[in-house]
């Protein structure tokens, strides 16, 4: 692991990649898998994973490899990585409210904690990150701050995605005010709103491909 970290660090200095590993990160239930599905369906016609209202539906890293984006005559090959939602707490009792048995709830919580660990480990192996935030929620959460601080420290290009802008309570400007130093793209992954704007941002801000 240490050697692969060192190798990654060395490669990053030169910033040259054949394919871009595009990580989709964010808190739980902000619409990461909906976004991954939208991107994947737009370019390959296939979805990446199942979407659910139950928190921590994505408990394993879901991949869609060799997704070819064509933006303004530029071609970018991406490996799409839909990450489990980041969280500082996972209480199995939460799942009881969704009708899980105690045993199933505990199992899900266990898988969810492993998912968070897995997502954090993957931070060493992504080239560009879409930091997804729910535009109807307060963006100044410690998870968002820690995630963005981490990416900055690792020199990983990041695009903040203000998702769910189709909802009445959405306030993407609050995200811009909270994180003025990052490009913020408003989308509704569910409705497919402004996905073109997001693809242009990916082409503009991603670590350069060969």
């Amino acid at each position: 692991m240490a050697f692969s970290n060192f190798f990654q660090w060395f490669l990053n200095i030169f910033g040259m990649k054949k394919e871009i590993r595009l990580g989709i990160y964010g808190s739980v239930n902000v619409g990461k898998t909906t976004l991954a599905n939208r991107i994947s369906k737009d370019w390959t016609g296939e979805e990446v994973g199942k979407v659910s209202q139950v928190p921590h539906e994505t408990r394993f890293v879901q991949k869609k490899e060799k997704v070819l984006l064509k933006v303004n005559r530029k071609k970018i090959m991406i490996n799409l990585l839909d990450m489990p939602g980041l969280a500082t707490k996972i209480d199995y009792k939460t799942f009881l409210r969704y009708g899980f048995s105690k045993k199933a709830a505990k199992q899900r919580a266990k898988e969810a904690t492993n998912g968070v660990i897995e997502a954090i480990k993957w931070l060493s192996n992504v080239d560009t990150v879409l930091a997804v935030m729910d535009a109807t929620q307060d963006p100044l959460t410690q998870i968002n701050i820690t995630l963005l601080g981490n990416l900055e420290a690792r020199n990983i290009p990041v695009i903040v995605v203000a998702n769910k802008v189709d909802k009445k309570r959405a306030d993407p400007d609050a995200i811009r005010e909270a994180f003025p130093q990052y490009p913020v793209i408003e989308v509704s992954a569910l409705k497919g709103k402004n996905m073109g704007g997001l693809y242009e941002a990916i082409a503009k801000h991603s670590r350069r491909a060969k």
Partner: protein
Amino acid sequence: MKFKMDFVSSVTLDEKTRDKRISFILSKVKDGTILVTDGVLKADEEMDLIKETMRRVDDGFPGIEVCSLKKQTKGMQSVLEKVTDQKERFQNLIFGLTGREESKTSLRTGLTLIGPAKYIKKIKKNPNSFSVMTEV
């Protein structure tokens, strides 16, 4: 039900390596203590804290709530901070390759509150302050 709050100076945390620092914080928080530290963990260290928290989650410990107020750095100070970060990152990669223990890293200027999620129900953060809602 009672809960305990500990206020910890940056000196106490500065003298520990990253792993020991995280272990110190989590052992306190898992015992039900709300910890206020004079200093802010670096972003990657805070991510390690979350990772280690997840490893320790069990039926009685659903995790942590954490919030920090970091002094904003500007200009040359900010550049120096980034250079130091890269230096420490490189140093720790080399240490990892050679099997040596990680170096000690100092905390950033600021304030951090870390507590058990079973007591802290919500933290409302503003750029320069935060409010903590507890339920005991």
